[in-house]
């Protein structure tokens, strides 16, 4: 068969904040970088994100959180993936996240955190260097 492997990424907005512009801009940028992006919309629970990621067989999940709930929600997604034996799916995040919280998030399995002002090109580069399609 003519093989054509693509990086697939789920972009999700967990929690209750409705500020989805960042997520949409990232989704659009990844599309323009040749990736297949599944965008699930607002108000996702960690359970919904894990389930969608597995059904879509994505290579990575990017979460955008502006509400301050990142310390809770992001690690729960990582744990949920591990429970479903899907720890091969990389998790990264962005949004309003204080620098002080980042080391702890990384320790809990969040592979990268992109704070406000990050050029989208940096996110694309990080994905291309760290994620390969299955």
């Amino acid at each position, binding site marked *: *068969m003519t093989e054509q492997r693509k990086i697939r990424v789920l972009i999700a907005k967990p929690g209750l904040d409705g500020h989805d512009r960042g997520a949409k801009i990232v989704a659009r940028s990844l599309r323009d970088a040749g990736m297949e992006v599944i965008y699930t919309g607002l108000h996702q629970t960690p359970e919904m994100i894990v389930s969608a990621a597995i059904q879509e067989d994505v290579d990575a999940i990017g979460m955008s959180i502006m509400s301050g709930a990142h310390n809770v929600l992001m690690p729960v997604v990582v744990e949920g993936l591990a429970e479903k034996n899907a720890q091969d799916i990389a998790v990264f995040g962005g949004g309003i996240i204080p620098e002080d919280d980042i080391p702890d998030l990384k320790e809990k399995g969040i592979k990268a955190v992109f704070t406000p002002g990050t050029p989208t090109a940096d996110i694309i580069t990080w994905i291309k260097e760290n994620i390969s399609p299955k």
Partner: protein
Amino acid sequence: MISLDALLSRDVRAGARLLRWIDDGNAEARGLLKQLYPHTGKGTIIGITGNPGAGKSTLTDQLIHRYRKQGKSVAVVAVDPSSPFSGGALLGDRIRMQEHAVDDDVFIRSFATRGHLGGLTNTTTDVVHALDAMGWQIILIETVGVGQDEVEVQRLAHTTVVTMAPGLGDEIQAIKAGILEIADIFAVNKSDREGADRTVSELQMMLDIGYVSPAEQAHHGGSILLRDQRQERVCPQGWVPHIVKTIATTGDGVDELMTALAEHTQAFQNACQDESFGRARQRQEFLDVFRRALFERGWSYLMHEDHLNQILDQLLDGSADPYTLAEEAVKTLYRL
């Protein structure tokens, strides 16, 4: 490795990975498809197509609800376009199907067209075979938003629902070929909007003119309607498309749509008893698989030992024309 047992017991991880392999053209997928094929044929396959913004995703979401109420498991194949420039895609059909995200009896998978025209992807047939074999009872295929000629879904689906929004008016007359011809059921969605009744009556008029009555068909001795050889349509004898008004956002009219779907499923199953009907369906499916096998064979030849580059060299230095080169390549291919 994916085990056949995991697939047949509807393991989500295994199934999702197989679909990835199918979509990516991974060589291992074909072996599994061969093993899965004997388990196909149990699922009900429904295509949802229509213009962009007509409400396909929202209507699909309503159908998931209804089929889940009947206790049936539902798999959704949602197709969105790839960017012709970057090759990337933004797949957003899940947004309107949120409530089913954690229901184990609902499986939703988004696909990008990856340059394939026709409303589906190049591998949707294989994807549907896999889901059918895995035991999903209802398989809903949501096409990309289509214009007039993206009619592939009707070859794959048992029942095709064409979703339309009001306001097309006279345009129906102009576009009555193409997607309007593939409907088993028309869902005139957003029917609380002005112009819905007009759309319904325009469709009705189109059907009155365009459909051969069952009596006439019997007179001509045909049990199936055949159009041209490539885009032939195989549908149960005597079926005249139903028109249903829906409001997908509220669920109005969805019960009527379910009734129409059940009636068509019955008609389809009855028609399947007829050998010529089954044969015509098989023909369509086989030709799809065969076409892809041929292309893959040709492609691997072109990629082998730099054949394609040699051809391009000859074209660039003007020593040959593309028609002759293509003919020669095909001849060589068949001798191999």
